[in-house]
């Protein structure tokens, strides 16, 4: 829709661009006369409006078709890409022809956790008997309900944030360790080195800016020098 609206606007603009020369000519012809509004008969106005509407509808339809076409082309492209990614057909056929391992069963056992280890082993054994296929499973885990964990940790996080904001948040008037410990150095007769030497993370933005500026300045110099 946005596109159609854009197009309409353009058309309107074109019309506006076409009109002024004519109007100008008319103005040149009868300069002395006062500008009288052009009389337009009802029929003509209606016809103009109709054609305009028709044109708009047509453009909208055309747009829709274009969009459809585009979509179709894209879908085709995707399909092709997918095909390219897949293994060659003969391999795929071979794979599908083989009997499946019971995937569902395995995933269920992993979910159930440590206490079901025996069960798992039995499963594995069954698998081994059937086909010589060894499935490695992790044995060292604990089963917990994520729901409970989430709630307590969330509460804990809220509480920690509360402390953090009250001790270190805005309005708490905190400084850096360097500034804090350099007071003693300022007044003492024996001047020592700063408590903390310059940290590389300081003034990152400014450094970045300086770097950009340097690059820009050099390129400017280079452009100028051949001339």
């Amino acid at each position, binding site marked *: 829709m946005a596109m159609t609206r854009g197009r309409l606007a353009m058309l309107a603009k074109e019309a506006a661009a076409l009109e002024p020369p004519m109007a100008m000519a008319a103005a040149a012809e009868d300069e002395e006369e006062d500008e009288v509004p052009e009389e337009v008969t009802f029929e003509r106005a209606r016809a103009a409006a109709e054609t305009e509407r028709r044109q708009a509808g047509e453009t909208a339809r055309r747009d829709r078709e274009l969009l459809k076409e585009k979509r179709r082309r894209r879908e085709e492209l995707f399909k092709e890409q997918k095909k390219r990614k897949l293994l060659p057909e003969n391999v795929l056929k071979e794979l599908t022809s083989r009997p499946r391992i019971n995937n569902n069963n395995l995933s269920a056992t992993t979910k159930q956790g440590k206490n079901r280890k025996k069960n798992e082993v039995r499963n594995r054994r069954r698998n081994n008997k059937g086909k010589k296929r060894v499935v490695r499973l992790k044995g060292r885990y604990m089963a917990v309900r994520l729901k409970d964990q989430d709630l*307590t940790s969330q*509460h*804990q996080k*809220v*509480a*920690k944030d*509360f402390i953090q904001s*009250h*001790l*270190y948040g*805005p*309005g*708490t*008037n*905190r*400084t*850096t*360790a*360097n*500034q*804090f*410990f350099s*007071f003693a150095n*300022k*007044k003492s007769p024996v001047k020592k080195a700063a*408590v*903390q030497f310059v940290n590389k993370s300081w003034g990152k933005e400014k450094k970045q800016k300086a770097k950009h500026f340097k690059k820009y300045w050099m390129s400017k110099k280079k452009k100028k020098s051949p001339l």
Partner: protein
Amino acid sequence: MGEFQVHRVRFFAYMPAGIRCLAHSPRSARLALARTDGALEVYNFAANYFQEKGIPGHETRTTEALCWATGDRLFGAGLGGDVSEYDLEKLRVKYSLDGFGGPIWSMAADPSGTQLAVGCEDGSVKLFQVLPDKIQFERSLDRQKGRIMSLSWHPSGTRIAVGSIDLLRVFDVKSGHAIQRILVDRHPQGLYRRECVVWSVAFLSDGTIVSSDSVGKVQFWDSEKGTLLETHPVSSSAVLCLAVSEEEDSIVVGTSEGAVYQFQLLPVKWGSAESKWVRTKPFQHHTHDVRAVAHSATALISGGLDAQLVIRPLMERVHGKGYDAVLRKFTFPHRRLVSCAKKARLLLFQFPQHLELWRLGATDSAGKDGDILPVSRAPEHLLQLKSKGPEHICCSCISLCGSWIAYATTSRLHLHRVHLENGSVRVKRVSKVPKLLCSAHQLLCSADSTSLFVASDQGAVHVLKLLEPGRCGHLQTLRPNSGSAQAVYLLTASVDGDWLAAASGDWEINVYSLRHFKPHCTVPVYNCAVTALAIHPVTNNLVIAHSDQQVFEFSITDREYTTWSRKVQQHGLHKGWLERDTPITHITFNPKQPAHILLHDTYMFCILDKSLPLPDDATQLMNQTTLKQLSEKARRGCAHAFKICKKYQPLLFVDLLEEGSLVVVERPLMDIKTQLPPPVQQKKFGT
């Protein structure tokens, strides 16, 4: 003093965790301390403030409140929402109980010690009944809006004052209703007009409530009428904690700026009955927020996020010039965090969640006394072993040859076999470590690296056999005859592999024969905590250091104190030696000089020469600099047994390597302070 080549090690980046809460028990003269990483420590004031017990931290445990109940039972509660009791004999959490009220901010035991009141995030105050071996939920007081940041019992046990956000409440315990609601002023001006957190409250027996809040005021309220009695603006930042003395005539508060103030109840005029709270003494011992204070009978105790525990005695309450009359500052644990492989020149550093293995540097050049030698091979970080799981490491050790590393958390013992072959390091975990039913509190490898001693609960020591290539098996369990209930926290073995000495929490030292795997003898119990133990490599004498700075030598073969030790006791130690403020944490020996004992605490390192006469109080204790200026002959006349060096501070570890050079591990305080969270800005005039 003897000359050594010294490895001055400063690459142990140990960061002590900040102190979150303190609880003082006047009955047992103990102080419990919880750190921000969930670790718990117990200091014994009767044993010269020795850190008697330690429970390692936990990732998910953040302790917000501690309290003693019925004398010596210790409870803790934290943001995890659990109330837990600590087992101080087995050094672990005994049990925890969910409070079902969200994170817990505050906890207090009632004056009789039978009930615990717990203030939760959801605005409820819950009462737990303290039963002989557990706690039980009793009931919940009326739930109100806003988190309960602090609470305090009235000494009669009938009311509870509660500090919340922007207000104070008084609850009647019997009915469970709130009977008073007092609004606290917010910050009057400023850009950040925000809520006022009542960080701490105290209920006095005359019905006065004392509150300290985030606006920086200490206020006194009448709980009956709900009116403000007095206001003391203390700081421009928050006042975070508050504690009242037992006689209720003195209050200590700690602020965000690191200052601690004392308030005293003083008569308005000389001799008049009317008295008023007056802010009397300011102390600025901390650089960062003081999050916990406690008031003992003779001292103000404060703990800050700068990990310092400061014990400031009140001079008007201390009688005489004793050990109690001096300011104490503790930053480092009174435990060994470093172990040294003397043969392989390796150092193992213990951090809460990992271990680091370093190879010491070396130099080609030689110099004279006082020279700094250029390093030809820089120290090398060989290995970082991360411990899995949320539990923190409680102890670690490396064998003398550097081929075995063991560490333990509360629930598990881990053993690793390390292969060092021309520069490359290979580590293999020993997969089948025998499952010990109880936790390990101290680890030690024997001198020939064939066995590992694991200190455990109830005075037991497990002996594990280390087998090549990378296996181990349980050999024996040594138990004392006396049937002690306390855990063993110090171990030492003789170099020839015949003897093992173990000190347990009740200060009993048992000596075991490793040939027959049975108890050999016990050292007569001394009435102060043992801080360090070592067996002499040549004479097999056991050297014992106590927290009151006494040093004993005990002959294992003769089962009695040696003549030198008796002589020391008769003569008495030097006054300067007895007044040192940190305990000796490690003892080692020089095999080339059998008469020497090397000892160190946090601020000094000393060679005790048994062949020289003991100093008396008239002579100078630290005489090394004056001795240097004397001639050879005069020097011999002035020398005494204690040769003390204070050049390296603060010391975490000193040991003598096999080839005779000394390793000194320092951790400068400034390095720690610069890595702490940002401090509050303080305006200083003229800067």
